[in-house]
């Protein structure tokens, strides 16, 4: 039941959907440690659904998700809980708990899941906040932060238990270009300095070029992965015309039914 160590996440023959409504099938990919791996696709291509299957929020219809050598789909009970703690997740809206301060949000996993003494919890949480540049905002409520700061606070919360893997759902959604670029910088820093593996769902082209080591592209028509590779490669010579169009941000007026 063990995987070769140079692969941190391995997804095999995954079929995801809701009941009889299959959204994606034959999803196969592998992620190496320290890699920034981007899941890409148009609106409605099942990016977020795939992510929710990868992190165990939904059970896939078929297939396996191996994380650090354990199959998350088959894991039950304590084994599953341990596996879930191996990665952190941030959500599109940040999903910070609105009634708690930023520091309390970041401390929460330490409070609930570790037996650390109080002062160390505070120190560890504050250090993570400083790492994402939010030390001075520790006492604020999430509603007092800007969108970019909320995203960074969510990343601090996701990594407070030092997971080796972080899943980010649309980290740059709703951010201005400068803030989004700051966030990209943070992600590459964390990946290079700490060896954290990132699996990022996005359709922000600028950010993909800035951060992605490897990309897979999902498509709602063929319901599977239509392209895989480095972003620059895909832009130049993807086999699929739609993929090239996506990477070059060309309109597809005929297909989308626009009659101007």
């Amino acid at each position, binding site marked *: 039941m063990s995987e070769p160590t140079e692969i941190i996440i391995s997804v095999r023959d995954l079929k995801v959907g809701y009941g009889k409504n299959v959204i994606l099938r034959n999803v196969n990919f592998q992620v190496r440690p320290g890699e920034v791996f981007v899941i890409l696709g148009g609106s409605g291509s099942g990016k977020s659904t795939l992510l929710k299957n990868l992190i165990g929020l939904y059970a896939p219809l078929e297939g396996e998700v191996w994380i650090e050598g354990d199959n998350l789909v088959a894991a039950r009970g304590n084994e599953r809980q341990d596996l879930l703690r191996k990665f952190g997740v941030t959500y599109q809206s940040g999903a910070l*708990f*609105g*009634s708690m*301060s930023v*520091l309390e949000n970041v401390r929460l996993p*330490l409070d609930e*899941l*570790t*037996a*650390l*003494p109080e*002062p*160390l*919890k*505070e*120190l*560890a949480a*504050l*250090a*993570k*906040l*400083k*790492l994402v540049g939010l*030390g*001075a905002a*520790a*006492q604020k409520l999430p*509603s007092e932060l800007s969108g970019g700061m909320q995203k960074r606070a969510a990343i601090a919360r996701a*990594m*407070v*238990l*030092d997971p080796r893997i972080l899943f980010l759902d649309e980290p740059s959604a709703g951010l201005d270009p400068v803030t989004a670029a700051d966030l990209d910088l943070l992600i590459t820093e964390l990946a290079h*300095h700490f060896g954290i593996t990132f699996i990022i769902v996005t359709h922000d082209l600028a950010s993909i070029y800035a951060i992605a080591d490897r990309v897979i592209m999902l498509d709602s028509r063929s319901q599977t992965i239509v392209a895989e590779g480095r972003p620059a490669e895909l832009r130049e010579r993807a086999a699929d015309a739609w993929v090239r169009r996506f990477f070059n941000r060309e309109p597809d007026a005929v297909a989308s039914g626009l009659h101007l």
Partner: protein
Amino acid sequence: MTKITPDELDTDFQFGPDGFARVVFRGRLDARTVATCWDGLERRLRAASLKTLEVDASGLRFCDGAGLALLRYLSMRLMTPEAIVSISGLESGLAQLLRGFTSEDYAAFRPPMRVKCRSLPEEVGSEVRRAAWDLREQIEFLGSVVGKLPPTLLDRRQMRWPEVRRVFELAGANAVPIISLVSILVGLIIAFESAQPLAQFGAQIFVVNMIGLVMVRELGPLLAAILLAGRSGSAFAAEIGTMKVNEELDALQTLGLDPIRFLVVQRITAAILLTPLLTFYATFLGVTGGVLVALGLGFPLPLIFHQLSSTLRLSDIGLGMAKGVVFGAIVSGVGCLRGLQTLQGPSAVGVSTTRAVVTSIVLIIIADAIFSILFYFLTR
């Protein structure tokens, strides 16, 4: 040197003269091992009044955020305030991280220890101000609803009758089962409880008179209104509050539509039409409950009807229905107002629904008291 497994932490203490101590960490320093070694460190180091503390981390194979937090705690002299602390042998990446968070950062980012506490006069003042502001908003709201209700009612296009029908069904038809259950039980319980004391005076038959009067004039309208407040007043506040949070109300306004005409008038109309019906139904079932008890006590049905018809006047039934209309207007109006007053934030809608129910019930009781006084003077 003892052999240790890779998952464990080995902590070694060496004490020298002149308050010197040396701590050697070997193995794995993570959240679990830090938690287990903490007590030992506290006991050995804090007690000994140290002048110099050396921490040797060269034997660490793994150190995570929790481990770094411990090393920071030591190096910031939080455990040994008198001592000069040095940490050696840390792997360069970790050492850089350790330096990345300083005592100054800690002092600057820490939560302030004192809890801000307001004085009593300040508290009272701000509460009074808030209550006065709320009253002002209620009056403004009442004014704008009264002003907008008649023209909207007359304008078929603006009135959106299908919406009224939808609210009527949700707040009325769907409430019938719960109202049935509660009313008939309340009727049964009151009749049953009062039958025993009345029996002492040989006046058991007056259970029927009492339940008739109580239900028609008081409990029927109250039960209907309180259930309406719990089921539908809260729902109005939640619906409109969610729309406010999602900027749907702003969208309505920029489309040139007035939220009061578009959302509030329909709900208030539906509630005003609906509550007398619910009141009548609740009253009928409540009285039925009382009648069942009377039957159980052995009184014949014709006698029961005679008692009822001799006690109840038409004006009593009119009073009950009038209360229904007023209570319906209160519940729906308060529900909509609280929805419109919703602030931003995750708990805002919850706060609005709570306030809707609480304010509705308080106002219902106050209105009921006013009704009682008015009716007393009018029928004297």
